Structure formats: C-alpha cells, structure tokens
C-alpha cells in the first residue's frame, strides 16, 4: 500500500491541448480518492497517468515515495479493478481468483495463502471450490475484486466501473466497493462522472474541470462550502439554484424577494453590483409549514408554481424566474459544461411532502437565508465561502474514516 503524490502534472496531446493542466494532488496511504467531473475534464487521463498507460508531459508522479514517470505499467504494481471480469466456466472460483498468480509462477503455498485471505475479506470462502456458474451478480464482481487483491498491489484503481451496470447492481456494488476498501484499507483512486457515486464513496473528492483541479475536499465540504459556481452546480441533486441578485448594502434583491446577509458575508461581497446567489433546494420550505421560531431566520416570498412533483416521502416545486440576459447566458454556459440539460432559469425547491401547494397558483415560500452562498457572476468565485468551516468538515470526515477502517478491519480479522 502506498501514497500517491502528483506534482504539477501536465498532459498535452500532439495538438498542444492540455488535457490535464498543472494538477497537484496528494492521496494518502489508505485513502479513498474520487476523481470526478463532466466528460472531457481530464479525470480518466489522470488515472491513466497513475497507471502508466499515458505518458506524462511534465510534472512528477510519485507512488510510495518513488518517482514512477518512466516506469511501465507492469513495474508500478497497481491494480485496475474490473479490468477483466470475465469468469472462466471450467475454473473453480479459487482458480478464477488465482490465475494472475499462476501466470506469474508464484509457488502453490503462497497462492493458497493469498487466495484464502482474499476470500475471507470477500466472504467467498464457501464458494472457492465451486464453479462460477451459480454465483450471483454481486459475487461475480467480488471474484473480479479478488483478482486485484491477490496481486498485493500498492493501490486499487477504478475507471467508471459501475457506469454500465444496471441500477440495482450498481447500488449493490457501490456498497461492496466501499466496504471492501475500508476492510483492506488500501489506497484507492476511483474515476466517475456521477456525482452521487462521488459523494457516497469517497473520503475526499477531487473535482476537475477542463484539466484543472477545482476543489479537493470531503463530500460534505464540497456540498456546504464549494469554491465556485462550477463545483456548487456539479455537486448535489437536484442541483443548487442560482438567482440573479442586486446588492444594496447588506441586502440582496432577487426574483424571490430580499435576502439579508450577515456581517461576514456582507463584507465579503461589498462593493459589487450584480451577483449570483446560490440556494440549495432544501433551503426552501412551504411558508405555511414553517415553525414560528424558525421564520425570522429567513425570508418569505410569493411565487407562481409551474409544476410540483410529489414523491411520497418528499416533494419538489418548480418555480420559473426572470433573469437579465447576461446572467441567462452565464447559466446556459454552466449547464452546458455540466452536461446538464435544463436551462436554469427555473428554481427547483424542496418542500415538505404534506405541503398542499398547487401547480399554476401563487404560493408563499420561506427561504433559509443563513446558508446561501453568493457568487461573482463573471469569475464564478464563491465570495462567501467559509474556508475554516469547510476545513473542519473535511477533518471530521478524516476522523470518521479512521474509525471506520479500524472497525471494519477488526471485523475482518474476527471473521477470519
């Protein structure tokens, strides 16, 4: 197991286009790091540079303290998990896991030891002598993971492993991968374009855009304290709403009424004119359902609801709003970049499932103004980000991870 350090990594193709542009990223030993971003952001290229499949134009790739830029994939001792998940029908589950070792002529006793260890972790022990034909979907995937485990690689690498599975198996596998990673405590780099996968799996998530790192943080920090419009828009589903806002002192005027900023945030945005305010769907509520004590912490506005979506346990309302042309085109650009379909001049707000707000009518909403962020519409920068609060969230995630690893590994040993 090893740490992976990337220092000023650049990848340029023949035409001079930088697919990866000055990326510096440290992945700790045992950490689960997600590389996420829309297509073309450079995440797969970066992973391939870690594996050794792609030449590095400049910068240093350091694995386990050694610079590996010039090393072939074979010499790096990393495992691309699910690279090969073919199951061989005549081979036992044991041999289906063991074959990479057989090819490397590892001696029998060692093969047995490693396969047994892997089978313990994967709970495949009782199947080892059977043929793979009767394994369930999840068990089949675990055999493929077993192949990666027995190689005793420095790190596990995943390249969108779940993107082509059906939804049910995808959910199942997400849990499996997460648990396995905790049990093995192995350094893992995982590439995905799916922000849900990123949020549920990673200790830390590295958000990439056009070859550049935007933010590296725990999922919670990304959600609560995004550095810019791009990260704010990419993380979260349904996505954050962006409303145009005029600043007057510490008061923002938006299509949904006034929002008063606290002192810190007011200072951060002072001296500007047109702004974008970012509000997550769950910061809204049907005003009639908000407790009197809570009401003063936010503002109330009236708007016409276009569509409501009742999902049993939750409900969403869609509220169109007007925006100046420059904001409109800015938001259109953002949607395009995020591979999102919707043109975001319509807010998606989450309201209680019991709310009786109806489509096509005016309704009164409450908006929790404490957590809104304010962005510079030209640069996209989050002007109100609280870096300290963000760092605290990531620290907490790191502590949680250590606890989880200890508990999972304790279980693994007792199970063996």
């Amino acid at each position, binding site marked *: 197991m090893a740490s992976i350090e990337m220092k000023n990594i650049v990848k340029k193709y023949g035409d001079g286009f930088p697919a990866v542009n000055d990326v510096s990223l440290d992945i700790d030993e045992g950490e689960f790091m997600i590389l996420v971003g829309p297509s073309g952001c450079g995440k797969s290229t970066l992973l391939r540079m870690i594996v050794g499949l792609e030449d590095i134009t400049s910068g240093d790739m350091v694995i386990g303290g050694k610079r590996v830029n010039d090393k072939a994939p074979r010499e790096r001792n990393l495992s691309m998990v699910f690279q090969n998940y073919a199951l*061989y029908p005549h*081979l036992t589950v044991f*041999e289906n896991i063991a074959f990479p070792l*057989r*090819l490397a002529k590892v001696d029998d006793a060692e093969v047995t030891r490693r396969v047994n260890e892997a089978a313990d972790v994967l709970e495949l022990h009782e199947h080892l002598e059977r043929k793979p034909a009767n394994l369930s979907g999840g068990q089949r995937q675990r055999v493929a993971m077993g192949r990666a485990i027995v190689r005793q690689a420095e790190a596990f690498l995943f390249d969108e492993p779940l993107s082509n599975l*059906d939804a049910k198996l995808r959910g199942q596998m997400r849990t499996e991968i997460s648990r396995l990673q905790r049990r093995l405590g192995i350094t893992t780099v995982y590439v995905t374009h799916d922000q849900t996968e990123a949020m549920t799996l990673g200790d830390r998530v590295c958000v990439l855009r056009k070859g550049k790192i935007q933010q590296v943080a725990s999922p919670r920090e990304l959600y609560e304290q995004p550095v810019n419009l791009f990260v704010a828009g990419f993380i979260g589903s349904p996505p954050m709403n962006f409303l145009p806002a005029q600043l007057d002192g510490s008061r923002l005027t938006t299509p949904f009424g006034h929002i008063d900023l606290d002192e810190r945030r007011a200072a951060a945005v002072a001296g500007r004119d047109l702004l974008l305010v970012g509000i997550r769907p769950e910061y809204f509520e049907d005003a009639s359902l908000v407790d009197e004590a809570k009401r003063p912490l936010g503002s109330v506005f009236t708007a016409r609801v276009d569509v409501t979506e009742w999902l049993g346990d939750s409900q969403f309302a869609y509220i169109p709003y007007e925006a100046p042309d420059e904001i409109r085109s800015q938001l259109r650009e953002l949607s395009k970049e995020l591979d999102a379909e919707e043109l975001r001049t319509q807010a998606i707000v989450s309201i209680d499932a019991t709310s009786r707000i109806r489509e096509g009518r005016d309704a009164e909403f409450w908006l929790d103004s404490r957590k809104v962020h304010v962005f510079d519409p030209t640069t996209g920068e989050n002007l109100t980000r609280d870096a300290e609060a963000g760092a605290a969230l990531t620290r907490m995630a790191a502590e949680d991870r250590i606890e989880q690893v200890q508990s999972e590994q304790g279980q693994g040993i007792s199970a063996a």
Partner: protein
Amino acid sequence: MRYLFRPPAAEAAGLLTLPWHQPLEEWDEDLLLEVPQRGISRHVVRFTASEGRVYALKEIAEPLARHEYALLTEFEGEGLPSVSVLGICFDRPDDQQAILVTRYLEYSMSYRYLFSGPRAEQAPEQLLDTLVQLLVRLHLAGVYWGDCSLSNTLFRPDAGTYTAYLVDAETAERHGSLSPRKRAYDVELARERVGAELMDLAAGELLPEEIDPIEVANALPGRYEALWDEVTREEVFRADEQAYRVAERVQRINELGFDVGEIELVTSAEGARLRVETRVAEPGQHRRELVRLTGLQVQENQALRLLNDLRSFRAYLEQRRGEPVPETVAAHRWLTEVYLPVVHAVPPELAGRLEPAEFFHEVLEHRWFLSERAGFDVGTWAAVRSYVQYVLPRTPREVTTPSVIAARS
C-alpha cells in the same frame, strides 16, 4: 424504440419483426439459432437467422453499443479484420440496454474448437501467431483493444493458415498512433487473458496435455515484439546493398502477412535509411486479382491458391490449343469447368463444414497427397471423390456454418 443502421442493410428489414421490446434472454427459442462456435461473453448474446444470413445480437449499455457500432464501421471501411456491424436497437422499453447487431462471420471457428479439436496439435503456435498478427495490425492502425483475448477473436481457416478477426470492440479506442506504453499494456492484458482462457480449457479437459497454458501465454509478448519490430523497424545499409535489401524487406513483410504501403528511402553519405509503411488492411493483392478475374470473394491465401490453379489451367489450355489463351477467357472457363463443379461436389449433408474456397484448397492438397502415394498425378476428380468420401465426413458436424444450418431448418 429506435433502430440505427447503415445502408446497405436491406437484409435488416427481415429482422425488424423480431421482439426487440423483450429482453434477449426471454426470446422464443424458435427465433434463435444455436451456434457452437463462440467464446465467453459477459453479456447476453444470441444468434438469429434471416433470409439465409446469420446475425449475432448482444445486449449492452447504449453508450457502449454506439461506440462499438462506430468503431466496427470504421474498421470495416479500412479493411481491418473485424466482424461486420449491421446496426443497433436502443430506447427499448423498461430502460433495457441496447442491442448491437453484427453479421455472423461465416465459417469462423472459436479458439475452444481449434485448441481442443482434431487440429489441436498444430494449433497453439499458429493460433497465437495469428492473434499476434491481428494485434499488430490493430496497433499499426492506432487501435488500442483493451480486451484482446481468444474469446474476443474468431479464426477462419485460410488455405493452411488462419486469419483472426476482432469480434468485440467494446473497450477499443482509436488514436492517431499508439504509444509504446499503450501497446505494452494491451499486450500485457492479452497475455493474461489468453493464459486464463487456456487454463480454463485445461481445467475442462479440452486442451491436449502437451500444451502448457502458462508457457503459451507467456510467449505472447515476445512474439508480439518480434513481429512489431519486423514490420516497423527502420534499417540502415550501404548504398550498394540498396536494391536487394529493399526487395528483401518487402518480401519478408509480405511473408508475415502484411502489405507494404509506401517505402521511404533516404540516402546520404553514410548509406541508405529505409522506412517502410506497413498497411493495416488485410493483405489483398491476390484477393483483388481473383475478384477481377472470377468475381470470387475469398481470403488472401485461398486467393493465392486459386490463382495458381487458374494459371496452371490456362497453361494447360494453351498447350492443348497450341496458341495463347487470353487471361479472361481462361478465368471464365476455369470458373465454370473447374472451380464451380468441384465445390458443388459436396453432398448436401456435408455442406457448410468448409468454406467453398477452403474446400477447393483441401481438395488440391488431397490431390497432391494421393499423387505422391500413387506415383502419378491422380487428377482433380479422383481427388474430389476421395476427399468427399473419406476426409470431409471426418470434419465435425459442429463446424457447420450457421447460415447452412439455418437454411436446412
């Protein structure tokens, strides 16, 4: 549901009536064809026949289906040995995956059959070389396969040798050119998969005992490197060697199963530097010649064999008439008086086991063998009779090509 296919695909019309809205696994058996010649797939794959042709249907995620459809179309256009793609069906109900439709490669055989069947003794080395040749060809074309294995390859007999075809391009990528790293990685993946596939055959007692899966698989990278070097290396030699060194090199590349596209020779005071651009398409010089003369579409080695027979037939005609016979006349007479009668001599119950041109090649081989034994030339017709009576029936029924099976039922 939506169907995407590229003309000419008139044959696809018959396929439209199939129950595309149902999962492939639930299709009525009457619609499907049992095909023994196939490898291991991680997807649901089924075969069906329509208007005398056979198709392979594979259920995969839509982005992969589109990707594979696009790549296979490109490969076919460039003459890379791959299966021919017909189209895809997507937007199926209940969020079902897409279905990719490829034309079944007639008279092809899977490694499972070739390694375990009657030809197994000569197979491992030859098949491995054939696979390596395919991989080199793809790499020259800037294709990273990402899943090179015996399961993803089909083999077609070609007058004593084999030609390998890429069957699965799901993981393949197209680049301008491939870096040594990518090639090495692809070869490494191939080594591992071939090893596992042979171990699997051994475990199923389908591999002759003399074949050591590990040894065969571990020999793959070396063989690949040797061939890659042969077809790509630059050579430097003295100016006076120029003429024969160029000829030698071109001949060597031809022998390895490749055509030479362009030769670049740079001379300087120190000598000449030779760079050869190797063509990625399957070699086609003899195939094209045979099509021009007879209209027959066969593989390259078979074409060479047939052309040689055509030439000796022409010499025979000229000798008998005592005057020159135009090539086109000779070709027409050879086709109607020799080739077609020979290939039509196969009785219906044995039809489909060998591709007609391969049957013709086998008959010529058999004629040589009988003549050796007899001490005189037994002639083509005696060879045909003997081959059909004694040799062809020993070819296993399982190799019968699916379109012939489909035509019978």
